[in-house]
């Protein structure tokens, strides 16, 4: 079986992002990029699935982005994936534009099982997996924390508000992965050296329209410094008053 993992290359959550001059994109200077953390669960689950069902299956990493995205593909190859495909695109696309190109590639590779992170921590739209499934007519199970795959059937446990849901589905399917599903392996030193010999195929991403457009980006307002009203119980009435009238939390 061919297994696709869609991987995105995103700013590390610890980096301080700045808004670019156009006011609607991130200034890439000084930003450290990493593989999207949720996609690491996706890669791990794909590798585990391959290990379980046998060696003739293949794990293919598919990424849409500019040249620098190859770093994340390399990392996934070093973890053990078999090959990578970079769909080259230097401009920012919306989720639909990205999903369209990924879906085309998944179709032409003939992948029956697709793993995506449940969201990408850059734009946080949480929608790529669902769009791919819709475009390809695959079933889709999102926010998965446990998964078993048997021949043509899968059973997944997914997180829902306040509980868990067990879902069964046929293949082909798209799974979006959540923290807790597995413990992603490190890229071992040997893995890194073997990855050197694996191929990353590069091709232009197929054209697509964007359905949405970013008009403006804002940074969240900076936190105001705290205020000390007093250090003994005489401050309590004032505190309650402010919590009610100013903060409006009571």
């Amino acid at each position, binding site marked *: 079986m061919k297994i696709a993992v869609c991987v995105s290359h995103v700013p*590390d959550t*610890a980096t301080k992002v700045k808004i670019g001059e156009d006011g609607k994109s991130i200034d890439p200077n000084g930003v450290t990029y990493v593989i999207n953390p949720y996609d690491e669960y996706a890669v791990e689950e794909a590798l585990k699935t391959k290990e379980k069902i046998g060696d003739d299956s293949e794990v293919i990493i598919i990424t849409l982005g500019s040249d620098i995205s190859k770093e994340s593909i390399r*990392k996934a190859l070093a973890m053990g994936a078999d090959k990578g495909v970079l769909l080259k695109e230097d401009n920012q696309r919306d989720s639909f534009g990205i999903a369209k190109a990924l879906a085309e590639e998944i179709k032409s590779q003939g992948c029956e099982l697709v793993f995506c992170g449940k969201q990408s921590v850059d734009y946080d739209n949480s929608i790529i997996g669902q769009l791919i499934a819709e475009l390809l007519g695959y079933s889709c199970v999102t926010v998965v924390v446990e998964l078993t795959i048997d021949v043509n059937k899968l059973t997944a446990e997914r997180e829902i508000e306040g509980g868990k849901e067990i879902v069964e589905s046929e293949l082909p399917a798209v799974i979006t992965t959540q923290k807790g599903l597995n413990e992603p392996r*490190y890229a071992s*030193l040997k893995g890194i050296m073997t990855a050197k010999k694996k191929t990353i195929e590069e091709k232009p991403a197929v054209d697509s329209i964007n359905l949405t457009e970013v008009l403006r980006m804002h940074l969240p307002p900076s936190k105001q410094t705290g205020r000390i009203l007093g250090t003994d119980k005489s401050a309590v009435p004032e505190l309650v008053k402010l919590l009610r009238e100013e903060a409006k939390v009571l």
Partner: protein
Amino acid sequence: MNMFEGADYFDVESLLSEEEVLIRNSVREFVSKEIIPVIETHYRNGTFPIELVPKMAELGLLGITFPEKYSCANLNYVSYGLINQELERGDSGIRSFVSVQSSLVMYPIFVFGSDEQKNKWLPLLGKGEKIGCFGLTEPDYGSNPGGMLTKAEKVDGGFHLNGAKMWITNGTIADVAVVWAKLGGAVRGFLVEKEFKGFSAPEMKGKHSLRASVTSELIFDNVFIPEENLLPKTEGLKNALMCLNQARYSIAWGVVGSMMTCYDTALSYAKTRIQFSKPIAAYQLTQDKLVYMISEITKAQLLNLQLGRLKDKGNAKHYQVSLAKRNNCEKALEMAHISREILGANGITDEYPVMRHAANLESVKTYEGTHEMHTLIIGENITGISAFE
């Protein structure tokens, strides 16, 4: 995820290959996720996190420069340096474990061992299924190991070993000890296995430094060593010194990891700690300290990288290794002290890593040749006159 970003003021990363960067990043992530969260507790309790050994082995960190046929990664010395740098960012004790296993146990078996010894031990040590230690120092012979008293005597089918070693990293947890002893006047290397009768390795207690590392005595009371456990290609003290040269190389890189975390901690503390209504980073005295730190880190990084490139070409000289070990350990200890100062009272607590690094680096400056001995090695090389022999 909060990836440690290191300190790279001169874009030294651009001098590394793509694989070297990936290797460094993978170990960096490992250190952040597996070592940092547990190290303070182990340090306080005086225990070595032995549960990390299989994980480090799986990552491929043990004996990385040795060939694939021994289940090793067959990587270059710059990569070896980088993994040591990252590990010591976590703790000098963890880095010591890897240095000893790779440079002081696997290396002598690889270079001075028979094919049988190599085939038996290297894969086991590389996979972390067996742990090794290196016994050279004795209670009365530290800087001058040539005076050692531990002796081997030829008997039927092997040797009898008598004597004692001291300050031996990994001793108590080791399955095999590479022990240096005099056989008819010449220093030879022996593989002493844990279960050999008459061999014991009690742990040394009371350390204020390298507390997350095991340090032991090795006691040999008429231990019978079979013939096949002599390292056949050893012929004198210089062979033991060749091993030390390998380990010193790993230390020169390792301590840069300590420097980076001490600098990183001091810098972010100085930017957020307000005194006299300003962050302490706003004062010239603090800036002077921080600038000194980043300058020394940058110099040490460039020194290491050039040393590594020389070593990969087979051209690194022992006195160049001494210079890097000597300089970097001294500076690392100084960085830890400066960082501690910048943190004020907070600097002495285990909320921050700097006091632990400062305490560790006291050992690191002393073992594998003290600061003074490296001065004398370089002094001998540049003047042609030995001040110690």
